[in-house]
């Protein structure tokens, strides 16, 4: 189920990417990065969902903590670049560039 949802989201984000308007391009990038994060989450297997704690006596069926760390890093980096790009769009608008002319 989640794979089909990822496919649909990827489709929408690529469509947005191909738009001329660069606000839509940025939104496409945002959606794309979030979809990739979900893909990363599914890569760690979704069957086992119990959280990991160190002092649990018999630890079975725990969720994969590594993908969560990867996603956290990816979100931080992606958010930084997103902020940069939105400031860039603001500056471009300040110069009088119309949103459709890129």
């Amino acid at each position, binding site marked *: 189920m989640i794979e089909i949802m990822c496919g649909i989201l990827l489709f929408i984000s690529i469509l947005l990417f191909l738009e001329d308007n660069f606000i839509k391009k940025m939104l496409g990038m945002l959606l794309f990065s979030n979809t*990739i994060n979900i893909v990363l989450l599914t890569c760690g297997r979704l069957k086992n969902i119990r959280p990991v704690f160190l002092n649990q006596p018999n630890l079975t069926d725990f969720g994969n903590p590594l993908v969560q760390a990867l996603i956290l890093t*990816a979100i931080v980096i992606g958010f930084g*670049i997103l902020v940069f790009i939105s400031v860039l769009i603001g500056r471009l608008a300040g110069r009088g*560039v119309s949103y459709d002319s890129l």
Partner: protein
Amino acid sequence: MIVSNNLAHGAVSLPLMMILLHLFVEKYSKIQRTIQVLGALIFLSFAICFLLMYKAPVTIAVSNWQPPFAITLVFDRLTCFMLVVFAAVLNCVSFFSMGDPAIKRKKREFYCAFWLLTLGMVGAISTHDLFNLYVWLEVMLVSSLILILSNHEQPLSELFHYALINVFGTLLMLASIGLIYSLTGTLNYYEIAKQISTLPAYYAAPPLGLLIFALGIKGGIFPLYFWLPRAYPSTSISSCMLMASITTKVIMVVLLRLVYLLQPLQSDVFQTLLIPIACATMVFGVLGAATQINIRRILSFHIISQLGYVLFSIMLVTKASLVAAIYFLVHNIFVKTNLFMSCGLVEQRYATNDLNKLQRLATKNNLYSIIFFLAATSLAGFPPFSGFIGKFLIISAAVDNAFYAGIAFMIAVSLFTMYSMFKIWRYGFCEKSEHLETVALPGTVSRSQVFAFIALCLIWLSIGMWPDPILKQLNLVAHDIIQLQVTVT
């Protein structure tokens, strides 16, 4: 061993320290300059000591977590060798940037981004963890964004284009890293190599193909390379040189390491797929250059075509082609940076780089003209210089593997390279046009720039005229890489 270990830590932490120092010394331009020169020289001396004292690979396990489970930075012979090359070119760029008028008001941003790029470079070529590679490439991306901005007129729409395409590339790379992790359960290069060679090809090929495609976007390989000639000519010449000599080349080193480590990438599927892509990269780069009349645009398109040669040589997957690929990469780093420097000097003196507005530069600037001519002939591949040796090595490696179509492409592309180099030479340096007068702006070239220009020229002349020591070193590098693949899998 202890000394090498300390040098490895130094190579990572020196750029970080330099970023911090540069944040504080903005107002004192003399101190800023001294710190920059000293830092770059110390970095170079670290790299040279490291290569001379090299005995075995130095592994830094981050926070002492042992290899298969955590991030490792491994300084093997390839890393040490490339560190020396990159440090040499960084020194030259650092000297050149002292007198660059385009970044005069943005010195602090420029130098911080300079060291951030260096940090990303050291990390990306030394890391042995796929996700960590992604992080270092993002560090390099962010620093390139700052570098493009450190120009007195800021090219915002080119920057937007650059940022978007590169972010697209890194996100695809992230997806492929996730898929590889789900296949092998690890992110360490050696473990991945071990696990993935046991998997059937139809499992291993798609994520690896996605990884190569994503690295190709970031490195300017054929289908999506248009961001490169669009972004590079719009920044200051120092930033342009830095990005041209570091970012795409680091991607090539990473590709080389992955191809020689992961067995599925050496299979026929990838060879039949990537060798035509390499040929297309060469051809489209050089055809793009043929239509341009702006010197910097011509040179930027040629970067792409040269990357095609390197990719072609990497994908032949023999020891000889490995040596050829690294030699050609090194030659290209030095010669291309030198050509960009001469273009920058022309821009500084005449305030333009349009071939229609320049004439008879050779009569007024003898030294620059001679160096430009030598570098251009070296890039086109004329005998006594490094370009000839690089192309000769690649062609002889291709003859061994009987890739004759690829050789035909290489020779045709060399002819076109010669055509556009001589286009610059003829219209910019020799021919006189009746209706315009090129006037030099007085006293704009500083002594440090001339020094960097000549030093870089001497470096590539020496690796071309006297290639024995570097080829001996490269044979050792190739031997290590091929041995490593055998021991790991």
